[in-house]
């Protein structure tokens, strides 16, 4: 989705403002939003890509004028409402205990999934990103569409976000896609005035890429 969350390369946001000795959490409500989001997420009623899409599809003005945890809270509220979770909690779903949550969050998950298909591209190969503009969730940023780059790593077959972010309440398509890290020269992305020493990489799934003729 071409949303305002896709921020790479915009030039109107001013300087980055670091905060000296910043605490991990600023407000008590942020603490609760973090915990509730993670705890309800652990019920398994949606996946990370579905929740990312819930955040990025907030109205643009709301997204840009909200803090990080305000975005989390708003997306969580919308999700709970869309699923009717408070009116009609799903059968058999119960709160995770502290032990279950801490164990889950301190364990190693994986987004690698098996596939029979071989990787189509290899390290060192030139590839072009496709000019994709899907209305649903995607993880190919706009600044890196239709650009030629070089594969520098093959990361294995990973869960494919564009299909994993299936509409809420439906089952995602589990077929993974090969994931690559692709390097782009700064001038390929930003033109002749770009920093000549700049390289930017994105992690791109195979359906985002095509061969360079």
């Amino acid at each position, binding site marked *: 989705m071409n949303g305002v969350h896709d*921020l790479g390369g915009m030039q109107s946001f001013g300087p980055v403002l670091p905060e000296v000795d910043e605490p*991990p*959490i600023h407000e008590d409500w942020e603490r609760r939003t973090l915990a509730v989001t993670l*705890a309800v997420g652990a019920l398994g009623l949606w996946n990370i890509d579905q929740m990312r899409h819930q955040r990025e599809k907030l109205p643009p003005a709301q997204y840009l004028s909200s803090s990080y945890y305000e975005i989390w809270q708003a997306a969580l509220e919308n999700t709970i409402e869309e699923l009717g979770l408070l009116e009609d909690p799903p059968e058999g779903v119960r709160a995770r205990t502290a032990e279950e949550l801490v164990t889950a969050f301190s364990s190693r998950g994986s987004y690698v999934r098996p596939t029979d298909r071989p990787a189509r591209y290899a390290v060192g190969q030139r590839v072009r990103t496709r000019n994709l503009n899907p209305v649903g969730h995607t993880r190919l940023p706009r600044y890196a569409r239709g650009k030629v780059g070089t594969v520098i790593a093959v990361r294995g077959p990973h869960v494919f976000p564009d299909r994993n972010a299936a509409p809420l309440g439906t089952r995602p398509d589990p077929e993974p896609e090969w994931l690559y890290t692709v390097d782009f020269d700064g001038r390929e992305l930003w033109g002749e005035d770009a920093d000549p020493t700049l390289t*930017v990489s994105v992690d791109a799934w195979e359906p985002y890429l095509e061969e360079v003729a």
Partner: protein
Amino acid sequence: MGSDHSHSHSHGHSHDHGSDEEEFSTLSPMDARVRALETLLTERGLVDRAALDAVVERYEQEVGPHNGAQVVARAWTDPDYRAWLLEDADEAIASLGHVGRQGEHMVVVENTPEQHNMVVCTLCSCYPWPVLGLPPVWYKSPAYRAKAVIDPRGVLADFGVTLPEGTRIKVWDSTAEVRYLVLPMRPEGTEGLTEERLAELVTRDSMIGTGLALRPEEVAP
């Protein structure tokens, strides 16, 4: 879900209602809104308050950049560990006990005099929680996410950092579940320092690439 309406209502009429609403009336709108949702979810058995407290404790107290600093200091002092870290960061980091959500597919990228690395997530705020903890506000801000990929030297200037001319700059946009950690250069004059002392020189920003590791004289002994 209507919480906007209900909390503003309780603000206006808190004296007419029960003690819960009076308590809410002293809270900020976000406090009241978040607490209301937590209460509803708790009443329906979907979250457990003790479990929420445990989650907060993990992410606010236990996980943080001190974990990543330990990884970096080990890599600075143990060439075998450094080689392992660059080859298979998942296993090398797990060997020090730093495993968990948002750190499933770690990749460590090494700064050299020739190349400086910087990490961003332009699409949201992906960040390696097990080694760096929760991301700072600036990392999540539109300004950083917009600027890092087009003007990383400008970002470094915002942090008061100037790279030597000729140092190439490489920005890693973490658009998948791969999480990047920068291995900063070991400062000069640190030959005799212990691993523990070296870890004190490793800042969060140096592991994102918006900063450099501190020199010993920049840290109180």
